[in-house]
């Protein structure tokens, strides 16, 4: 049986690039998620004098479950579709982003950094770009926050769509963390 393999080189777990080579081989599988891409920007205390950019426009990772969810929305659902991947979560877990993750490990659930619906959800008509943004405000101390993910529901659980790591940061009460996902499809 003919299959199509898309091979992309990656700098680390979270990186994708565009040096895609496409070759037809027997019985292969898609190895990376070239059609859905995303970039993450995370800024502590944006607009304040102690602003700190933790990552800017960093390529993220589409999880295997996220890919399956997208495929279900596009092709295989036979009933009404599901909610978009527009809930943003954070964690202090240091294990890194992994396409096989089905949860965000040790997801933060307290003190202002719990999973939340993106405050900004914007798409520009006639383009393939969508932006999600949420500004979290810590109501307690959080140490070494360093990874974010997107989900399709507010409560812990659901399907994880994207993951990205960033420079570990400690937040005190009233510190803000602006998380922006810029996603492309097609």
């Amino acid at each position, binding site marked *: 049986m003919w299959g199509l393999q898309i091979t992309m080189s990656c700098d680390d777990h979270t990186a994708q690039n*565009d040096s895609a080579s496409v070759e037809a081989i027997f019985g292969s599988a898609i190895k990376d998620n070239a059609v859905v*891409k995303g*970039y993450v920007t995370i800024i502590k205390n944006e607009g304040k004098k102690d602003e700190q950019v933790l990552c800017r*426009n960093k390529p993220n990772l589409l999880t295997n479950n996220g890919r399956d969810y997208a495929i279900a929305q596009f092709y295989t659902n036979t009933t009404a579709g599901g909610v978009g991947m527009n809930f943003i979560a954070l964690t202090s877990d240091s294990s890194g982003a992994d396409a096989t993750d089905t949860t965000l490990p040790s997801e933060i659930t307290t003190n202002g950094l719990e999973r939340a619906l993106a*405050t*900004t*959800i*914007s*798409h*520009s*008509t*006639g*383009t*393939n*770009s969508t*932006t999600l*943004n949420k500004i979290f405000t810590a109501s307690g101390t959080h140490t070494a926050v360093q990874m974010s993910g997107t989900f399709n529901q507010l409560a812990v659980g659901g399907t994880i769509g994207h993951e990205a790591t960033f420079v570990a940061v400690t937040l005190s009460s009233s510190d803000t963390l602006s998380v*922006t996902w*810029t996603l*492309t499809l*097609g």
Partner: protein
Amino acid sequence: MGLDKTFKDFVNDFSCDTLDQWIEHLATVELTYTGNSACVTCGDNVEFSWTGKLKNGKTYPQVLCGGCKSQ
């Protein structure tokens, strides 16, 4: 040849590979942005459909709610 890079503007036949290039492009062309966001003044949720050149260095417009706009 079709648009073959990461960010694609089908209306203006443009594509690019980096977010910085994309943000530069959004500053030069009028596009319509739809969605919802927090009012930049009071924080209330606002549904918007906004057309224009985006010159704020972001990929979405920053919006005001009706109440704040009228003040």
